[in-house]
């Protein structure tokens, strides 16, 4: 059993997706989905333990030796991302039970949970695979299910948002396929480790830089790096609450992981940063993302949209860390993957609670919610503090590493940008807090606190974002080791 964990991590949700689709009642479908989600969390955590002891695990699917067959190759970076996905899934699924029951028609429940599981297994598949074409296949599984889940939002703009995401996502995926094809034509292999060995021999050929460019553009489309982020704000804003919470904390993270994988494992640091001057492109873009998108977030009247723009800015932080190309920078990027998943998950879930009770997340509808929904808004404040980067929250830990990485390069101006970004986060979080706590609630409107089934998952993430902010040694440790693995190349 345990030697099959790498495959089971992905195929258990994949098997249970059609099972969930076949059961007639949404409650049963939910139970199936919940079992799958919790299983993946268990599987990924036990894999982490194994990898910390034994080092990277290789699993040959179909029993074929790589590069002839498809290999799962799980190192610390993969499993770290897989844990993020699995953990967010495990927390979202109890949340979805109440939230989806209200936002999605009951009879579509089984289909919804099938889509959810497909998305989950797609994301997990991307994070553990060691084969570049397999990445594309699982990327499509997760994307297609994500598009359909986003389109389920009550607002009709969910449809256009989903369509826009579909178009941009498909372009991104096609670019990735082109990149993979160009790599294949020069090396004759699709296995990541094999590519890493064979690419340097042909790196002088013009094809490889172009493959690199296409892969980078394709992945940045998927991860919504400024200025390719256009699909993200609408998609996050109009999707059902549970979907937003799940997608926002996982999908872009997995794309960042892909970026890391391609830059460091496959092309290698030397090629990516010295030959391709990657930092010269990513750094300015991420800085603009941080500043411009935070500024845009400040002017949003829809809080989910505000958070979505904040997500684009936060993605800027991750990419900024990666663009340094140093162990410290990549550590900052990786740790922010995890931390941002926690806080954004919590924030979007809190907004889901508001949506549940108030029926809108426009800022003016949130007047007095501090009194009416104290727990929800307290969770929002908790997540918001983390977004700002107040000490004892995960956001602080991220910033700690990021600023350090910037200072290590002697670029104090970038360190300043990070700080300015935090202050802008302060402003947009504050806008919401002020309305919720200082305006009197509308007395005609009876608003009640969200049910416990929504609050508990929300608070689980808030608590985690404080716990890992106070004791970050585990995450920092894993992230540092992961960064060292990446930069040190494949062992």
């Amino acid at each position: 059993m345990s030697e099959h964990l790498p495959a089971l991590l992905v195929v258990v949700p994949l098997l249970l997706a059609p099972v969930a689709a076949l059961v007639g009642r949404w409650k049963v479908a939910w139970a199936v989905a919940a079992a799958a989600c919790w299983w993946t969390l268990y599987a990924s955590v036990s894999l982490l333990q194994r990898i910390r002891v034994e080092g990277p695990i290789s699993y040959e699917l179909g029993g074929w030796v790589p590069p002839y067959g498809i290999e799962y190759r799980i190192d610390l970076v993969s499993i770290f991302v897989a844990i993020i996905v699995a953990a967010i899934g495990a927390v979202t699924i109890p949340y979805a039970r109440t939230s989806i029951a209200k936002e999605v028609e009951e009879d579509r429940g089984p289909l919804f949970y099938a889509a959810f599981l497909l998305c989950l297994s797609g994301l997990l598949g991307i994070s553990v695979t060691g084969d570049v074409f397999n990445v594309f296949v699982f990327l499509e599984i997760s994307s297609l299910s994500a598009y359909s889940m986003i389109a389920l939002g009550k607002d009709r703009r969910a449809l256009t948002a989903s369509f826009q995401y579909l178009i941009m996502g498909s372009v991104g995926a096609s670019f990735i396929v082109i990149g993979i094809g160009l790599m294949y034509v020069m090396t004759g292999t699709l296995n990541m480790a094999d590519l890493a060995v064979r690419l340097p021999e042909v790196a002088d050929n013009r094809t490889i830089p172009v493959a690199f460019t296409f892969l980078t553009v394709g992945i940045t489309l998927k991860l919504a790096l400024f200025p390719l982020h256009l699909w993200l704000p609408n998609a996050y804003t109009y999707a059902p609450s549970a979907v937003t919470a799940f997608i926002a904390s996982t999908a872009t993270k997995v794309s960042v992981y892909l970026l890391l994988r391609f830059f460091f494992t496959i092309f290698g640091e030397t090629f990516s940063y010295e030959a391709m001057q990657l930092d010269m492109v990513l750094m300015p873009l991420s800085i603009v993302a941080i500043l411009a998108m935070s500024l845009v977030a400040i002017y949003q009247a829809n809080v989910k949209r505000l958070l979505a723009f904040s997500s684009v800015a936060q993605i800027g932080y991750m990419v900024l860390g990666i663009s340094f190309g140093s162990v410290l920078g990549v550590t900052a990027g990786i740790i922010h993957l995890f931390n941002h998943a926690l806080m954004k998950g919590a924030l979007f879930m809190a907004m889901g609670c508001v949506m549940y009770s108030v029926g809108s997340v426009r800022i003016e509808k949130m007047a007095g919610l501090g009194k009416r929904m104290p727990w929800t808004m307290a969770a929002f404040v908790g997540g918001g503090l983390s977004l700002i980067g107040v000490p004892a929250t995960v956001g602080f830990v991220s910033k700690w590493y990021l600023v350090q990485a910037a200072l290590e390069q002697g670029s104090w101006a970038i360190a300043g940008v990070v700080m300015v970004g935090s202050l802008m986060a302060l402003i947009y979080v504050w806008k919401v807090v002020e309305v919720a706590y200082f305006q009197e609630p509308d007395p005609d409107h009876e608003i009640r606190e969200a049910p416990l089934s929504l609050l508990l998952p929300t608070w689980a993430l808030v608590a985690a974002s404080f716990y890992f902010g106070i004791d970050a040694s585990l995450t920092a440790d894993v992230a540092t080791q992961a960064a060292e693995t990446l930069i040190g190349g494949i062992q």
Partner: protein
Amino acid sequence: MSEGMLIGFTVLLPVVGAMAVLVLRATPNMREAGTLFAGVATFWHVLGLLYLVQEGARPRLELFEVVPGVPIVFEVEPLGMVFALVASFLWPVTTLYAIGYMRGHHEENQTRFFFFFAIAIAGALGVAFSGNLFTLFLFYEFLTFCTFPLVTHHQTEEAKRSGRIYLGILLATSVGFQLLAIIWTWQLAGTVEFMDGGILAGTASVGVLSAILVLYVYGVGKAALMPFHRWLPAAMVAPTPVSALLHAVAVVKAGVFTVLKIAVYVFGIDLLQTLATTSWMAWAAAATIILGSLVAFTKDNLKARLAYSTISQLSYIVLGAMLANEMGIIGGGMHIAMHAFGKITLFFAAGAVMVAAHEKKISRMHGLGRTMPITFGAFFIGSLSIIGLPPAGGSWSKWFLGMGTLESGQLGLLAVLMVSSLLGLYYLLEVPVKAFFFKPPEGSHHHEGIHEAPTTSLIAICVTAAATIALFFWPELWYDLMTMAVSGTGEVAP
């Protein structure tokens, strides 16, 4: 009880008090008794730690690591002891005052008030006992957030605006500058521990270290160095006990204490002397001293005047730190205590006038001294201390600060101190003089039926006023502690 446990206990006690407040919210008397009890107990524990420190020990409590190499750690050293003593002594006293004030003023949400009040003290003690920059920053921010509900206690439009300024400036400076400086320090020195003699010496060029110093000094927004002082007058919308304890003692002193601590334990006096920006910062402080006094002059609202006086006085301490010599730092450290007692007396008195006479404006206090002699008497004593005249404690700290300027040869700064004191003489003494010697305007009835403040408040005022005078006669404790801090050894300098 081990030393480490003792520290943990001391910091936690106010939190326990806060919990007690929540539990006992149904019966106000019990609730206030709980706070008082927690306050006295906290002070008692601080005294226990004081004993250890005087013995030359440095009790230490190390908790888990936040990021590898950066633990949350407490360490009690003499400078922190000064701050902790002041804060923990004045907490129960202020509670006593607040009981009378809040009831007399018919304030709402008293439970929330006492709750956050106690939590804030925990934050202040955390700052005082922090053993490294990270822990200090953690509690510094904690203090910012938990005092926010106190500032916006009234929840009016004005309170909201003030709260925005309060949080905005404090967070912006701390995140924008201070945190940057801390991470930079970690980057350079590989540690954020507070160590005798500093940790930064020799880690980078003078230019870089000078820049870090500027980041630190302006990054500690709670020290209210101009132009980052606006939050302090804004915070005066809070109920007077808050202004008194937090914005004359706990919060602002946390700021200047941070500056002192960074000067002594992160840079070290020797390094500080070599940095170009040290004297710039000294002059920035000097400018704030003068400007603060001048603005105080123009304010007719008593609390606003006291706020600007506080801004001015805080810069004395920053100035002391930036003089970068032993005398300056000793003076600065002592001024934490001296100013605290003096200023809290003034705030208490101002609050008493508000409760008893519903009067905020100085120009309308003519003749009030006759109906409220104790209050205005205490105000007079407090004023003396702030100005630096005997027989009040403030004269000692000013003396040492003056000595510090002489030692560094900065006569210009000495002149600044003199001028500021003269200004203080006017803008502070104007109040008791008007109250005692001026007649109430003819035909006005607004002083009729006015009595002294509520009894518990009056007791508090008397205690702080008496302490202010006592500090003049027995300043040894503070002097000894500061000498220990500066000399870096457990021994008391002669």
